[in-house]
């Protein structure tokens, strides 16, 4: 892998109308690192993750995402895998169709590989609307990781997952964090243990 | 009176001035809002 990603955030802040969600956030993460974002509810964890994913823009401050030293200005989504509870899947599409919608590669056997890896093999042809919330979470994780992207953003990755699901998740994160850049936003200490550095939004804001 | 065309001219001019007066009134109200906000901000400090 020659692709080295670098995320540099300096003095990010986000306001929503008159109220401010967070301010003065600075950090930098590189490929091969795992970065956690923690903080109490309402401190802007999800918003920060969405800003990194390019779904929202910071009100002030600068966020630069670089690939091999060159800033990515276009089609950021090609480099990103993203999973968040705010991201609903297509209810009327089957598990396989949802995964293949997210899949951008050529080799279609990878889709089946990931589906069985996360234990959804026997639910492959069910529509997403009849899945339980835990299975939906697994499907979200599949769509985030299926392209083996350089940047993986996970917002509350372990929510609704059972022990077996968490096992798979942790194993996968351990595997990808050697080469990719992983950012996890969560309050679960078990998930945060995967990363060796991060920020606490509660401390930032005070 | 009504048959006199100048009457209509008079009405037209009047309507235009009423419209502009309403616009000014709106701006006026906005200014008073800002005034209130400024005084509140000063009080906090």
């Amino acid at each position: 892998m020659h692709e080295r990603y670098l995320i540099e955030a300096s003095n990010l802040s986000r306001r929503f109308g008159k109220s401010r969600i967070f301010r003065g956030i600075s950090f930098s993460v590189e490929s091969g690192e795992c970065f956690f974002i923690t903080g109490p509810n309402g401190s802007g964890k999800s918003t920060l993750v969405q800003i990194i994913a390019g779904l929202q823009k910071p009100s002030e401050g600068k966020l630069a995402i670089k690939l091999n030293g060159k800033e990515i200005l276009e089609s950021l989504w090609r480099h990103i895998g993203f999973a968040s509870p705010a991201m609903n899947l297509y209810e009327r599409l089957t598990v396989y169709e949802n995964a293949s919608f997210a899949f951008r590669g050529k080799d279609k056997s990878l889709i089946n590989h990931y589906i069985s890896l996360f234990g959804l093999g026997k639910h492959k042809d069910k529509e997403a609307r009849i899945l339980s919330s835990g299975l939906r979470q697994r499907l979200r994780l599949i769509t985030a990781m299926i392209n083996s992207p350089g940047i993986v953003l996970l917002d509350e990755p372990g929510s609704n997952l059972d022990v077996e699901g968490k096992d798979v998740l942790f194993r996968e994160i351990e595997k990808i964090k050697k080469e990719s850049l992983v950012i996890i936003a969560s309050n679960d200490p078990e998930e945060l243990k995967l990363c060796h550095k991060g920020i606490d939004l509660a401390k930032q804001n005070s | 009176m009504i048959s006199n065309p100048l009457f209509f001219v008079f009405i037209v001019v009047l309507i235009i001035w009423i419209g502009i007066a309403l616009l000014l009134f709106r701006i006026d109200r906005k200014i008073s809002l800002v005034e209130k906000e400024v005084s509140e901000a000063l009080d906090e400090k």
Partner: protein
Amino acid sequence: MIRRSLNFVIRGLILQNRIVKLLKKDFYIEFRSRASINISLAFAGITTLSVSLTSATMNLPFRVHSILIWVIIFFSAMNSLSHIFIREEEEGTSIFLSIHSEAEEIYIAKLLFNFILFIVITVVVTPLYLFFMQIWPENFIFFASSVFCGSTALSSITTTLGAIVAKTSMRSSLFTVISFPLTIPVLWISINLTASSLEGGSVDLLNLLFLLAFSGVIVSFSYLLFKFIWMEQ
């Protein structure tokens, strides 16, 4: 310059691949839920029937026929046209959509979907209307092309407006308000064209071209501006 245009072509090819995927997805969802298209077709059928029930024996002027056709088409299509974007917002799938595709791809896919939907509705409404009202256009090709060009122009403008409306808090009630002033010129010209084709007037190429040019202009500007509607820039 050459590199730039080459880049553009390559990007276009990648776009195409994604667009097919997006279109397929929209059609799967549409045919599995069948909510919007069923309502549209039912609406079209019921209004056509009720119009013909009450007025088939009367000898309406052709202009009135043309107005009725367009009113029926327009209002039956209205619901489903904005629905394509509103559904993404209401079901919370817009993040999933935008994390896996470019804004331009989304626009083109939705435009094509709306266009096909519109054509389906007109293909159902117009023969039904002609059949029940017992009228037949003198110059059928002119008539068909007037309906086709009108549908193209209407679907191109309503796609953009549907995207705008989906991002607001009021959605479908707002759609009527904001689409009315901008669809008026198109409806106006389409009604005139259809009326003159029913009356057996000569082919009015200028106005047909006007409708196509209108849709071309709107589509190209929407293509450029769509990303500002879809996501914060």
